[in-house]
């Protein structure tokens, strides 16, 4: 008989569909075991697993994205247009079938906007997270909101540091660094991008 895994897993917050997941039914979940993080990808009627062992995780990256703000803007715009349309309707529009159908469609859009807009505001700003190992970087679609990502990452940091210890740079090995002392480092374009941009600039100069 096949063996069944008896690893105790703990479900982490966050559950989101992948890009275009509404159509492909792909969604992600995160589960934490004692020594690894399990990324579960639901793909219709299959489950795929990716295991990230805590001792192998090198980086966790969280980047704020404008997707939430854009969605808020679009929903607010739709709602405003629907309200303006209803304000501009003639009082006897119920008798006119064309007006009634259009009013019904826009009413449905307005109701959807009224429901989704506050939810989107409550869920908070959006983000994109990645997990890096020596050989691989994986996007964590399940962590799509800053609040959820913050909770999960703080938990993961605790667990990873319990396994690996705290990060100390090679240049300053032996010294204990405090997170409070951190200063944002300057970020420069990579060499390849610099070269590519130089080439583009040269091409434009030639064209001029």
């Amino acid at each position: 008989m096949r063996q069944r895994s008896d690893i105790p897993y703990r479900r982490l917050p966050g559950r989101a569909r992948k890009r275009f997941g509404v159509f492909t039914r792909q969604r992600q979940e995160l589960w934490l075991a004692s020594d690894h993080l399990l990324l579960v990808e639901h793909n219709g009627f299959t489950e795929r697993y990716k295991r990230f062992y805590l001792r192998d995780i090198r980086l966790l990256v969280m980047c704020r994205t404008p997707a939430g703000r854009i969605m808020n803007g679009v929903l607010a715009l739709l709602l405003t247009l629907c309200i303006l349309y209803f304000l501009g309707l003639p009082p006897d529009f119920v008798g006119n079938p064309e007006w009634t159908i259009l009013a019904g469609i826009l009413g449905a859009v307005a109701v959807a906007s009224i429901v989704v807009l506050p939810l989107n505001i409550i869920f908070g700003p959006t983000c994109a997270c990645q997990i890096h190992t020596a050989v691989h970087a994986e996007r964590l679609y399940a962590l799509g909101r800053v609040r959820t990502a913050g909770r999960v990452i703080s938990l993961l940091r605790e667990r990873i540091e319990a396994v690996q210890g705290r990060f100390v740079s090679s240049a300053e090995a032996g010294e204990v660094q405090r997170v409070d002392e951190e200063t944002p480092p300057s970020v420069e374009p990579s060499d390849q991008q610099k070269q590519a941009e130089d080439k583009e600039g040269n091409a434009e100069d030639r064209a001029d």
Partner: protein
Amino acid sequence: MISLRLECPCCARDMTVPINYPAVEYTCFSCHSGTRLWAFPALLQEQRGSLGESLHVDDESSCFFHPDRRAVTPCDGCGRFLCALCDIEFNGRHLCSSCIESGMKQDTLPQLRREYVRYDAAALALAIYPVLVFYLTFFTAPIVLYLVLRYWRTPISVLPRNRWRFIAAGFLAGMQTLGWGLLAASIFL
């Protein structure tokens, strides 16, 4: 200081980020999105496999796969002697690559399982969706019953999941089959 070439999660542009603290904040020069990064000691570790020591004395045990290398441990699966290169430590056990491969094929190492087919979800979907076109249930209800009976004891996930979908699918398929049976009885009797 360590400099890493990273891909921005937002705009996918590569950038070089100097990392000298456990937590680093930076702004992407391309999309200007604020990014926070947490580094861990694994970043500083160079991961290199060991080739294993050469065999100098004839009476020493040699690796089964590399006769010129000294054996360091026997495989916990098949007992073959392994050198440092062939020894794969997995969940506290020392295994050779062929044992891991056979474990994956025979499903005796659930920690290596990468995919499960969710027969319970498939059975439930097959029991529910055809109800919209009721005549389809004549064909799908037996299939659902087969799936429930055939895969009832099969592991459906590495995660702690119960079998309520199988129960619900079996119940629905049973009701559909009963409905068709009653219909057939009312027509023929």
